[in-house]
């Protein structure tokens, strides 16, 4: 009995901690897909790119991945602006169908992945931080710091994004651009500029999440694909484009994954997010917290 309690307790703790991190992974897609209606299927590839940049900076200069996250986010912001510019010029401006936009992002995903394979090879890579090996203990519950640290920073990022989107003019403009671009134009705001900045923001979160990922688990170029299901599952579960909804969806998914891994074995875990996504789409496409 004691054993099963510690098993379940630890699964809950790990699920919650993982969920916080998953929120940082998916919040970018909640912005790009949920608010801007840009199906950025390459988002996980940018996350893996962030992981490898954090890995390189850590290897060369010994910078902690959390600090790397702060350092690389402006670069990812700029990258996001470039990608959106290309997307806008080629697809949105010409009024082309979203189908080709999807193929465009799929191509980007593939190029990033193969590029990483060519530069870094297909081995699993990881970093060592002072807190990688230690854990806090509370009774039978373990709090591994390699999960606690990314969890805390992720929740802080989520909170900051929520405040940004709710309290500032820019944030309200982002929320408005999906609803009524014409009204926004009448307010003297350029909708394209707002969309560009919001998309850049979403890519910046990908860079941040990537730096956390390398603390949590070893990284290999093709693991990005497993996160495609995760980010869209969280985004749909959370009700598309709500920041706190993303956090809730991410925690649900984290719990579902750790329970599956604990009771059925880790090799089943990748099916959880996609299975949950398919179920949500079939039963309640508006998401758990959508209207």
């Amino acid at each position, binding site marked *: 009995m004691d054993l099963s309690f510690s098993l379940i307790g630890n699964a809950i703790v790990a699920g919650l901690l993982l969920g916080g991190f998953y929120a940082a992974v998916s919040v970018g897609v909640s912005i790009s897909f949920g608010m801007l209606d840009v199906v950025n299927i390459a988002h996980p590839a940018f996350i893996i790119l962030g992981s490898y940049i954090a890995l390189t900076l850590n290897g060369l200069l010994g910078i902690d991945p959390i600090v790397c996250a702060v350092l690389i986010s402006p670069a990812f912001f700029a990258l996001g602006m470039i990608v959106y510019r290309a997307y806008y010029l080629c697809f949105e401006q010409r009024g082309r169908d979203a189908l080709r936009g*999807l193929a465009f992002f*799929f191509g980007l995903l593939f190029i990033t992945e193969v590029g990483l394979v060519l530069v870094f090879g297909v081995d699993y890579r990881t970093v060592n931080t002072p807190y990688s090996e230690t854990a806090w203990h509370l009774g039978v519950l373990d709090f591994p710091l390699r999960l606690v640290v990314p969890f805390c920073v992720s929740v802080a990022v989520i909170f900051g994004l929520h405040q940004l989107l709710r309290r500032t003019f820019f944030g309200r403009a982002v929320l408005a651009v999906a609803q009524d671009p014409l009204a926004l134009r009448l307010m003297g705001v350029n909708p394209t500029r707002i969309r560009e900045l919001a998309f850049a923001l979403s890519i910046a979160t990908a860079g941040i999440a990537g730096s956390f990922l390398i603390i949590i688990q070893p990284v290999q170029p093709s693991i990005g694909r497993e996160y495609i299901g995760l980010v869209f599952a969280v985004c749909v579960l959370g009700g598309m484009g709500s920041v706190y909804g993303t956090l809730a969806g991410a925690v649900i998914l984290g719990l579902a994954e750790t329970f599956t891994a604990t009771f059925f074995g880790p*090799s089943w875990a*990748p099916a959880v997010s996609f299975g949950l996504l398919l179920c949500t789409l079939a039963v309640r496409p508006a998401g758990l917290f959508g209207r």
Partner: protein
Amino acid sequence: MSNRLFAAIAGVVAAAFIGLNAAVTNDYFFSAAYIVLLYVILSTAWNILGGYTGYVNFGTAGFFALGVYTSVVLFKAFKAPLPVMIVAGTLVAAVAGLGVGYLTLRLRGHFFAIATLALAVMLFTFVTNWDYAGGARGAYVIAPREAPFGFGHYIRYLYAVMVVLAAASIVVARAIEHSKLGRGLAAIRDDELAAECAGVPTLRLKLVSTTISGGMMGLAGTTFPLFISFIEPTSAFSLTYAVNAIAMPVIGGMNTWMGPLIGAVLLGTVQQLVQVTVSSAWNLLIVGVLLVLFVTMAPSGIMGWVRTRQHRRRAP
């Protein structure tokens, strides 16, 4: 050109390709040609949904692997003959196509694309955990030593089978394109809401389209275990199939049966050459870069480019 005439011409071309067996002595030619033909079927199948109907399928590898693993299981269970494998794998993948379509096609188009990707990863997880079909370790499917009908090496026999299947897929795709079904699908692609208002039974047509497309992708996979003889999940579900099945129609041109054929033959041959001479990672990078370049610069593909040139010549 009527469908029957086209089918007859396709039959003659297929017979000519099978006739190469007598002329070409190098077995490698047939194994390279097999892969190109496999991509002809996959991209033709993708185009029925992607090009004709306007719905993107990222799960090509999943449907393909359904065909592959149906064959593996039938082979392990009863040493089933090749025709049985081909029919069974096609049916299984067609049912999967119908199921995914039924779950997601009532939603906006993006969700279908994401759901197909989800299907591929879920199937991958199931197969990895399914010990009977080899699990993560993989399974051996050893082709018989003697090929039937006096083909000599078994690769040559598989090549001939693949020529027939590819020709049949193209005939089916062209027949759809020129049928009432094809016009309905084109209406959905151009404006789904308007099509619905005009009385096109959109959901039903989309379901027919996903079923045919999924089944055809499974068809491409059914002979693959015998070709490769050792099959494991990572290779059967490789994202390479998905990206190629999208890149080839995009490069060739998406609205006609000819586009995927041109794209597959062109890109498939280039890939076979690069794979042998340079490396497989570079080969994949080339596909990705070509996909992005074509989709941004020449969205109507090679066929579209040819057509605009013809127009210009006619109306100076």
